[in-house]
C-alpha cells in the first residue's frame, strides 16, 4: 500500500476512535443528567411528604402525642433539606447528604402513628383538613417510593458505565463524583393502602 492509502486508513481509524469517545462521553453525561434529575425528584417528593406530614400533625385530627411525634420527624426532614438549600451543589455531589436516617425516621413515625384505628378516625371526618392531609401523605409516600427506585436504577446504570475501562482510561467522567444508591425505609403504613 502506498503512503496515501495508509494515511487514509489512519485518519479513518482516528476518526472512528474520536467518534466513539465522544459518543461514550455523551452517553455517560446523559446518564449523569438522569441520575441528578432523579435525585432532585426524590428530594422534592421527600419535601412534599414532610410538608403533608406536618399538615396532618397540625390538622387536629390525630391525638396530640401522635401529632407531636409526626411534627418532630417532619420538621427534622425539612431542616435537613433546607440546610442544603443555599449551597451551590444542592445534592452534595450525587450523594444524599446522610439524610437516609432522617427519612427512615419519618417513615417509621408514620407507621407508628397511622394505625388502622387512627386512619379510620381521620378518614371519618370526610373532607376535613385531616383527611385531605392524609391523602397527601399517601400520595407523596407512593411517589417517594417511585422516585427512590428510579434513582437507584439510574445510579446503577451510571456505576456500570463508569466501570468500563474506556471511561476510566480516558477520564470520560471528568470530575463528576461517583453516585451511590440511596437506601432508606420508604414503606407506606399498611393501614393507608386498604
Amino acid at each position, binding site marked *: 500500500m502506498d503512503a496515501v492509502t495508509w494515511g487514509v486508513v489512519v485518519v479513518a481509524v482516528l476518526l472512528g476512535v474520536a467518534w466513539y469517545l465522544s459518543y461514550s462521553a455523551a452517553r455517560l453525561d*446523559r446518564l449523569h443528567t438522569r441520575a441528578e*434529575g432523579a*435525585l432532585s425528584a426524590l428530594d*422534592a417528593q421527600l419535601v412534599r411528604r414532610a410538608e403533608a406530614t406536618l399538615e396532618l400533625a397540625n390538622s387536629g385530627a390525630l391525638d396530640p402525642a401522635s401529632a407531636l411525634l409526626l411534627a418532630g420527624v417532619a420538621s427534622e426532614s425539612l431542616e435537613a433539606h433546607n440546610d442544603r438549600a443555599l449551597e451551590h451543589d444542592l445534592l452534595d455531589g450525587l450523594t444524599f447528604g446522610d439524610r437516609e436516617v432522617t427519612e427512615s425516621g419519618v417513615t417509621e413515625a408514620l407507621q407508628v402513628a397511622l394505625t388502622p384505628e387512627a386512619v379510620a378516625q381521620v378518614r371519618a371526618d370526610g373532607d376535613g383538613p385531616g383527611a385531605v392531609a392524609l391523602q397527601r401523605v399517601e400520595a407523596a409516600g*407512593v411517589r417517594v417510593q417511585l422516585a427512590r427506585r428510579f434513582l*437507584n436504577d439510574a445510579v446503577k446504570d451510571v456505576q456500570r458505565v463508569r466501570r468500563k475501562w474506556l471511561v476510566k482510561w480516558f477520564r470520560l467522567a471528568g470530575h463528576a463524583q461517583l453516585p451511590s444508591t440511596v437506601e432508606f425505609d420508604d414503606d407506606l403504613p399498611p393501614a393507608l393502602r386498604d
Partner: protein
Amino acid sequence: MRIGIVCPYSFDVPGGVQFHVRDLAEHFLAEGHEASVLAPADEDTPLPDYVESVGRAVPVRYNGSVARLNFGPVTASRVSRWLEQGDFDVLHIHEPVTPSISLLALWSAEGPIVATFHTSNLRSRAMQAAYPLLRPSLEKISGRIAVSEDARRTVTTHLGGDAVVIPNGVNVARFAEAPVNPSWQGTPDAPTLAFLGRIDEPRKGLPVLAAAMPAVLDRHPGTRLLVAGPGDVAAARERMDARVAAATDFLGMVSDDDKASLLASVDAYVAPHTGGESFGIVLVEAMSAGAPVVASDLPAFVRVLDGGRAGVMFANEDARDLAGKLGDLLADGPERERLCAVGQRRAEVFDWSVVAADVMAVYETVTHSTQEPRASSAGETRWTRLLRGRRAGEA
C-alpha cells in the same frame, strides 16, 4: 400533560398489550390530558382518532409466538416525525425490548421516558446477543413499570435494576354491568363453561380443557362448553373426543360486548393456560363479570386470584385435576355464588381508576426529575444525534 404512548403490536388484531394501551389512553383523555398513541395498523383498519398508524405490520416470529411488528428505516423516520410533532411531556413505551416501533421510539426519543414491560418470558438468547447494542437506549428509560411480579423478575434478571409493579387495568364496571345472554346461561341440568383465547394455540390450553371434558360430562351430562376465540374450528373439533365436540359451541371471535356478556352468563370461566402468561387480565375480566374462575396454577394466575382465595386453581396441564375441580364446582351452587362475590371484590384492585392513578404518579415522578427544558429538536436530524451520541438537554 401531553402523553405519547407507543404500542409495538398491530391494532389489526386484538391483544393484551393493545387493549392496555387503548384503555390507558382513553382513561387519560377522559381525565383531560392530551394523549396520542403510535401503533402499527393496516390502512383499512378503523382506528380511534387518538391513534396514529405507522403503517402495515409484518408477521414475525419473536419470543415464541408470531407477532405483527414494524421496523425498518421508513418506519424509523415516521416514528421520529410523530415524536417531533407530539412534543410530549412524557413518552410511555410498551415492550421496549421488541424489534418494533417501541425500540425505534426509544432510540430516537429525548426527554422523560417511561417503559412498561408486559412479558414474563424474554428470550435471554436474543437479549444477550443484542445487548451491547440495546443498552445505551435502555439507559434512557427513567421509570420502568412491570405489569406483574413475573414481568418484574424478568426485568431484574435480564436488564438489572428494578421496576415498579403496576398491574394491568380492567374496566370493572363495563363487565359488572354486562347483560346476561340467556342462550349462554346455564341451567342446573345444563351448566355452561367459557373458554377464551386462540383455539389453535396450545399455550392457551384448550387441549387440556378438552381432555378434562369427558370426565366433566360423566358427572354433568348436559354441560356445554362455549369457546370464544379465533382459529380453525374444523381442526379443533377434529382434535376433540366426539362427545366433547358435540358439547362444544365455537363462537368464533366475539366482540368486546359479547365477551363481557359471555362471562356474565356462564357458570364458570376456565383458564387452562399452560404458560407464557405474565398477568392474566382475562381472569380479572371474568371476576368483574361475576364468573367463578377455574385457572391453572401459573404464578401469575395465583397472584391475580389472591393466592387462590378468589378462584379455583388446578395443577397446570393436569386434565384430571381440572376435571375434578370443575365437576365439584358445577355441583356446588353456593360455592359458585361465594366465588362470584369474592371475585368481584378482588377485581376492584385492578380497576383502571386505581391503575391509571398509579401510572400517573410514575409520570409525575419522572417529569419532575427533568426540570431543564428539553433541547429543541429543530434542526436536529438523526445524523446529528448520532454524531452527538443522541444526548438530551445539552446546551
